[in-house]
């Protein structure tokens, strides 16, 4: 019995000592990794990771060393955390008639697909983001964008969705789908994006 306890204690100590911090940069859905700057709290040299599966591991001296992990390593070591990732956001885009918050006929039909996605999720929350084209001022477009989002929110509430499950945002003309010069009417930029999350 005693011997078992000693072995157990040794094993626990060994695993605690062996555990070092490990940070691994992963590729995104397009294969790009971006950069991850690792700045040691105790001072010391920062590490910049910029390749998929490039890693930083803490050393006993309090600093970090650079290394390489792999898809298999990450899947094994981080299995539980990765597996608990929220399902990806489902995105829909609906279009408006010029200067109004009235949907185009085709977009009215897309509403059914959105409702299906919402009911398929256990705890759905919806973000409605309104966008405009570049006709008018930035401030006017911020308001029009928000109005489009609010008007769509009402439509979802009529379908039985709770008020606090829907957030609205107006991005105005900041994020055009199609780049245009200012004061250009562009139907594809007059839209709401629906994020079902």
């Amino acid at each position, binding site marked *: 019995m005693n011997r078992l306890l000693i072995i157990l204690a040794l094993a626990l100590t060994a695993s*605690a000592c062996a*555990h*070092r*911090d*490990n*940070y*691994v*940069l*992963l*590729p*995104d859905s397009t294969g790009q*990794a*971006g*950069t*991850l*700057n*690792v*700045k*040691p*709290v105790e001072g010391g040299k920062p590490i*910049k*990771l910029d390749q998929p599966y490039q890693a*930083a591991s*803490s050393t006993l001296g*309090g600093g*970090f060393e650079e290394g390489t992990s792999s898809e298999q390593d*990450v899947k094994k*070591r*981080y299995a*539980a*955390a*990765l*597996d*608990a*990732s*929220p*399902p990806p*956001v489902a995105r829909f885009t609906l279009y408006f008639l*010029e*200067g109004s918050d009235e949907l185009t006929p085709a977009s009215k039909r897309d509403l059914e697909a959105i409702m299906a996605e919402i009911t398929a999720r*256990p*705890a759905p*929350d919806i*973000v409605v*983001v309104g966008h405009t084209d570049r*006709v*008018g*001022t930035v*401030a*006017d477009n*911020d*308001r029009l964008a928000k109005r489009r989002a609010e008007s769509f929110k009402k439509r979802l509430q009529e379908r039985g969705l709770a008020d606090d499950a829907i*957030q609205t*945002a*107006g*991005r*105005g003309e*900041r994020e055009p789908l199609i780049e245009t010069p200012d004061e250009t009417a562009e139907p594809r930029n007059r839209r709401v994006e629906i*994020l079902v*999350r």
Partner: protein
Amino acid sequence: MFRTGKHIRVRIHLGSVAFGLASMFSATVFAAEAAPQAGNIWGAQIKVSRGVVSIERDGQRYPGLVGARLKEKDVIQTGGNGSVGVMFNDNSTLSLGPDAEVILQRYAYDSTTYMGAFDAYIKRGTVSVQAGNIAKQAPDAMRMVTPKAELSGTAKNYVVSVGE
């Protein structure tokens, strides 16, 4: 600009005064204490929850069930068999493996400009991080801090493992 009738135009004009005041006010609040946007104190929601998951808020402990909302200063903890996936307002996500603890030190997000501040302290455990709109707008505005290092950058996905 000729896009609306006279009635609507008048209403928009009146509305714009109110909106202008409101946005000035919220901009001041944002700068002073980085409070979450007015009207939405919640910064995140639990989307996946397995095993024992709990939320500590103002010294109280709550079960971390699917659908539970989270805000700044909340502490997320998982037990030995637990894991949890959290979605933030800016589409960032954090998911935690077993025996993990993460403190949401700061979360502020403006859904119009995508400006914000997101600081989380990963005290222990494994965490998978997906950056959202806050980091897309300003990479340094999202920071994951561990006892040993501070992480930030343009990365969209990375994983973090912190020992005891």
